């Protein structure tokens, strides 16, 4: 997902908990929201900073593959739509950085960790966007997968995170629909255009499935995060839901999902499908995907190039506020 392989700290075992931890877990079990100034276990705080930070980074880095096509959108309307979508993603990043900041970390610290490679962002944004059809596939599949994960997170236990998710979900459905709209247009176009749409689906299908992360049904970290209600479903549950939702949408477009083993399983009421290549996933997370260096390089450059501007505005603000106090 936008937060993959987040390591969780703490114990889900009641016998090993301190009385404070038991009381805290009881609050979560009663579906109470935890707010910034309230007591929370250190592990809850640390895990949330990691998860929300990674989510925020994904929103910001996620602007790059789509930004790639803003100047080359086929019509002025498509360009305006794509700009609005990419601007929304900046907003999503900001909501999430703010939520993380309520846990006692600064935005600059989070950015430094990203730039130093100490914090991750979603593997999906390390794939290139080669044709205009990729704008369709990204909106449809990548935002579609993000929605799958973000909708349940609206009910997460941490108040600021939950509120950020509610805002994000309100904006997200436009993202997926504009992507599917591009796919519909391409699939109703010339054979070459339809072939571009199929090619985009071929390249993004497995990376989209990887977004949910490897199977975690036996993972201790996931069990802890689920007990804390900062993870609401297992990776496999969400992936299954995503496949079941997406297959009929591909069919409507007249496109073929690039999985020869994909088939409906009446008994389980869902599709059987092939796993993505997890060795590729780990390689991308380790920094060896097709675009890792380019993505991180673009972020670091933007940050460094903007330093004079950030400092300039701070200097101006300091001068200005000094002047105002003196005038009173």
């Amino acid at each position, binding site marked *: 997902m936008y937060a993959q392989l987040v390591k969780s700290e703490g114990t889900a075992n009641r016998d090993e908990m301190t009385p404070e931890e038991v009381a805290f877990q009881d609050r979560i079990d009663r579906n109470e929201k935890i*707010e910034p*100034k*309230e*007591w929370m276990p250190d592990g809850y705080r640390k895990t949330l900073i990691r998860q929300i930070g990674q989510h925020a980074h994904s929103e910001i880095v996620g602007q790059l593959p789509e930004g790639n096509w803003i100047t080359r959108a086929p019509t002025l309307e498509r360009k305006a739509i794509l700009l*609005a979508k990419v*601007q*929304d993603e900046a*907003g999503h990043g*900001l*909501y999430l950085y*703010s939520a993380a*900041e309520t846990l006692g970390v*600064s*935005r*600059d610290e989070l950015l430094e960790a990203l730039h130093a490679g100490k914090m991750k962002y979603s593997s999906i944004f390390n794939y290139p966007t080669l044709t205009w059809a990729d704008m369709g596939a990204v909106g449809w599949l990548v935002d579609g997968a993000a929605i799958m994960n973000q909708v349940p997170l609206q009910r997460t236990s941490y108040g600021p995170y939950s*509120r*950020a998710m509610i*805002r994000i979900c309100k*904006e997200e459905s436009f993202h997926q629909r504009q992507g599917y709209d591009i796919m519909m247009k391409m699939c109703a176009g010339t054979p070459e255009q339809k072939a571009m749409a199929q090619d985009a689906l071929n390249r993004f299908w497995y990376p989209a499935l990887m977004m949910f992360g490897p199977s975690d049904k036996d993972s201790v970290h996931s069990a802890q995060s689920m007990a804390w209600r900062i993870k609401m479903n297992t990776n496999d549950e969400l992936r299954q839901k995503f496949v079941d939702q997406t297959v009929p949408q591909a069919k409507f477009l007249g496109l073929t999902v690039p999985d020869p083993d994909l088939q409906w399983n009446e008994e389980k009421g869902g599709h059987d499908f092939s796993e993505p290549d997890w060795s590729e996933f780990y390689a991308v997370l380790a920094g060896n995907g097709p675009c890792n260096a380019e993505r991180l390089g673009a972020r670091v450059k933007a940050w460094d190039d903007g*330093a004079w501007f*950030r*400092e300039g*505005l*701070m200097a*101006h*603000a300091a001068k*200005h*506020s000094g002047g105002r106090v003196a005038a009173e």
Partner: protein
Amino acid sequence: MSSEWPLWEIFIRGQHGLNHRHVGSLHAPDAEMAIRNARDVYTRRNEGVSIWVVRSNDITASSPSDKGPLYEPSNSKVYRHPTFYDIPDEVGHM
């Protein structure tokens, strides 16, 4: 010097005349830029017609541990609610 812009809390009043409501926070060098950024971050879809910005540092909040002493006294004052009073049906709507 650290050039991190300070944090501001953003309040927005929507179209329908309700109170300004806290919608989130953002970083900005000064109040004017905070309003401009709030316009971009929090009103991209006609969410509001008025923006207030307040430095986060200037907000004083009640402490979570005061929950009991602050709010419990009102629990016992049921007569503050209209449902406390039985008005016979014959009287009509009140």
